[in-house]
């Protein structure tokens, strides 16, 4: 890959030399093929690690696949499904009985997928404005903290208003937390990567303080346990599939899907989205065109924060119902959102699919899902993190894919790189 031998044509010196190849490459391949190659490559390398440490990669990936419940889709039969709000059943070709392992696993995968969609959108939306929101984790935590507070207080409220209040306040908190970074970027030019990293860790320690022993939001009954009060039943999201006692799929998945649609509409069908994208493409040109760049930085970050805060809210109100110091410290839903957004190329459909991939991966390796006789869950969890890191690594270097893609043509390209 050394460029020293023959200097490659650059954009300035010879734009025609590679422009057709480049645009052709991206039209043909960039949208779908690059993420696919990246993911396949990452899984192959993960398989290599598995093989080196003395396990059979095919068995392991099969165990993860089944642990994620994806085998559920391949078992057809004659079953029934309840029609909502009625006592009727209709015929259905999949067995929705969550007492069966595969169906249960798929509900769990969807539970993991829903917040990943939202944290992925949190990263993707800011990206479209040219901002790298690495603070999804902090915004997620702030949303979770606020929703667990609201959900465990205001006991006398009715169900719907209580849930709405918790969700709205969590989204607002996430928005405020993210907007700090947007505001600092807009006013003093502080780089959002640095500010959001700092905000992540501030949220982390704030959560550790709030729910730690003797902390202000720590459980009032079990004073020795560093965990919050439970969310009261009246503030929990409705279960839509499965047995609520065994962690059913909750209606938060609808919030996530609505967010995907909202993301698409805001970006592609509104003035705000147009401005956000204009700033993302070229802030100077946008400024020249009369768009307030700073205002869009703040708004884009705030909307990102809304998505991440919602993710925290649906996790708390949907299945966790409480938040402990340990939950705050080991959670990485917000960080995985970065990989979701990048693999999904910052588009609504892409984020949805990437979230499903990562949701399956991370649920498939959880200790509850994976068959421990094939592969221990502790190893599998780290394998999943490694695969995710490799995806992130390769997706960040699309030039690598270009090198591989164009290897035979001996073309050295330089895509997506504005010259200073």
């Amino acid at each position: 890959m050394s460029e020293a031998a023959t200097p490659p044509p650059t954009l300035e010196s010879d734009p025609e030399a590679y422009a057709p190849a480049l645009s052709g490459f991206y039209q043909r391949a960039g949208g779908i093929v690059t993420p696919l190659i990246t993911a396949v490559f990452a899984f192959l390398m993960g398989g290599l690690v598995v093989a080196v440490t003395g396990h059979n990669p095919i068995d392991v990936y099969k165990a993860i696949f089944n642990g994620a419940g994806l085998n559920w889709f391949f078992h057809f039969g004659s079953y029934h499904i309840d029609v909502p709000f009625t006592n009727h059943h209709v015929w259905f070709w999949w067995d929705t009985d969550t007492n069966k392992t595969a169906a249960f696993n798929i509900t769990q995968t969807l539970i993991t997928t829903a917040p990943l969609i939202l944290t992925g959108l949190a990263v993707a939306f800011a990206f479209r404005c040219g901002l790298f929101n690495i603070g999804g984790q902090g915004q997620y935590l702030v949303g979770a903290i606020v929703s667990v507070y609201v959900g465990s207080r205001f006991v006398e409220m009715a169900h719907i208003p209580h849930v709405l209040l918790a969700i709205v306040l969590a989204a607002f908190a996430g928005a405020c937390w993210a907007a700090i970074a947007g505001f600092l970027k807009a006013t003093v030019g502080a780089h959002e990567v640095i500010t959001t990293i700092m905000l992540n860790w501030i949220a982390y320690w704030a959560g550790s303080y709030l729910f730690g022993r003797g902390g202000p939001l720590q459980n009032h009954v079990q004073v020795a346990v560093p965990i919050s009060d439970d969310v009261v039943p009246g503030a929990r999201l409705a279960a839509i599939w499965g047995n609520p006692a065994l962690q059913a799929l909750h209606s938060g998945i609808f919030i996530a899907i609505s967010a995907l649609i909202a993301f698409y509409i805001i970006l592609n069908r509104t003035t705000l989205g147009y401005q956000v994208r204009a700033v993302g493409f070229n802030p100077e040109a946008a400024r020249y065109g009369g768009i307030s760049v700073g205002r869009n930085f703040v708004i884009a970050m705030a909307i990102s924060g809304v998505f991440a805060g919602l993710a925290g809210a649906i996790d708390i109100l949907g299945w966790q119902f409480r938040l402990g110091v340990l939950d705050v410290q080991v959670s990485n839903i917000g960080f995985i959102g970065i990989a979701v957004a990048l693999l999904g190329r910052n588009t609504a459909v892409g984020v949805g699919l990437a979230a499903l991939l990562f949701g399956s991966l991370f649920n498939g390796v959880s200790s509850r899902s994976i068959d421990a006789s094939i592969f221990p869950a502790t190893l599998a969890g780290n394998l999943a993190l490694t695969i995710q890191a490799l995806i992130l690594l390769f997706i960040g270097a699309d030039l690598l894919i270009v090198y591989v893609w164009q290897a035979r043509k001996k073309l050295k390209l330089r895509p997506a790189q504005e010259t200073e």
Partner: protein
Amino acid sequence: MSTFYYAAVERWPRQTWVGRVGVALGLCAFLVTLPPFRVNAPWVPVLIGLLAFAAGIAAVSRGQTRPGWTAIGFGIVGIALGLLATRASSSNLDQVVVWGALLSSTLQWATPLTFAAIGGLFCERSGVTNIGLEGMMLAGAFFGVLGADSTGTWWGGLVIAAIAGGAFAAVHAVMAIHLRADQIVSGTAINFLAVGVTGYFFISHYGDRGSPGSLPRIPDVNIGFLGNVFGSLSLMIWLSFLLVILAHFTIFRTPIGLRLRSVGEHPRAADTVGISVYGIRYAAVILSGILAALGGAYLSVVFVGSFNENMTNGRGFIALAAVIFGNWRPFGAFAAALLFGASTALSFRLAQSWGNASVLFQALPYVLVLIAVAGVIARPTPPASAGRPYVKQ
């Protein structure tokens, strides 16, 4: 994406009032313990004094030498006098022992930060952003334990940690320099990769036995006349002091340092005069990985004596914070590492008396950096092309 990195940061007018605020805070640290305020809790003057210290670092590393050093001095004296005053009121002589221990604990917490921060400094000075410091530290922590355990010698652990950290950094370097990947994405990937890889190999290697118990310890350096705090510190702590001096000398007093800085400030100009931009950047990134890994190895092999999953727990990001807070200068970063080490040490020290709220001290570095980059005190000025890939013509 990364072309935006720092792009919007302008040079900020130098502010002299930061130092003055620091001086005032240093005074306050002592004053609050006197009538009419009569604060008895020792952490109050310590916190105020540390803030004075922070303001002092901020001022000094941005060129405001005189007010800055005055603020640092006032901060230290304020802490000392404030503590004396609170101790006089509680007449508890045990406090001396406690605060001596706090000082040595501060040095112990600051050492991994110093190593990683100096590493990050080299990397960023060469124009490559490194938010993968956390991952490189974690790699050093695990492979240090693995190396010390399998070779049976402490230096074996350090060597293997350095190799592992260098390898992780090399991945980042290839991604950031040759493949021109987004350096933030690549750094984030390195962080995850380190968590996954170290966790995986830790469990697959030590799974049944747990983390190795009796590792060979890095020897302490006993210098009797320096008293019981400085008299017996780990070799690594002394090395970290040496490293800071060496880094300062290298960066600001040698041709290599000049090349490093020119590559970070204006790579095209450096390339024009025949400096190998890629070569310098590769060397700097890999050096940063080696140093961060040594910091991680100190944490696991010396300080904790074992490894557990994800044990660095954000220290790489604190090191990054120290680089920024110290304004990309070795002594600034070192002072910031000391300050942040003190905040960690305090959070553990105060846990008994102050309860759970002492964990908030752990957030102090992040809050300070947020304030610093907001330009409220004194804005850091990063290397001009940090985060921007360079394309050879």
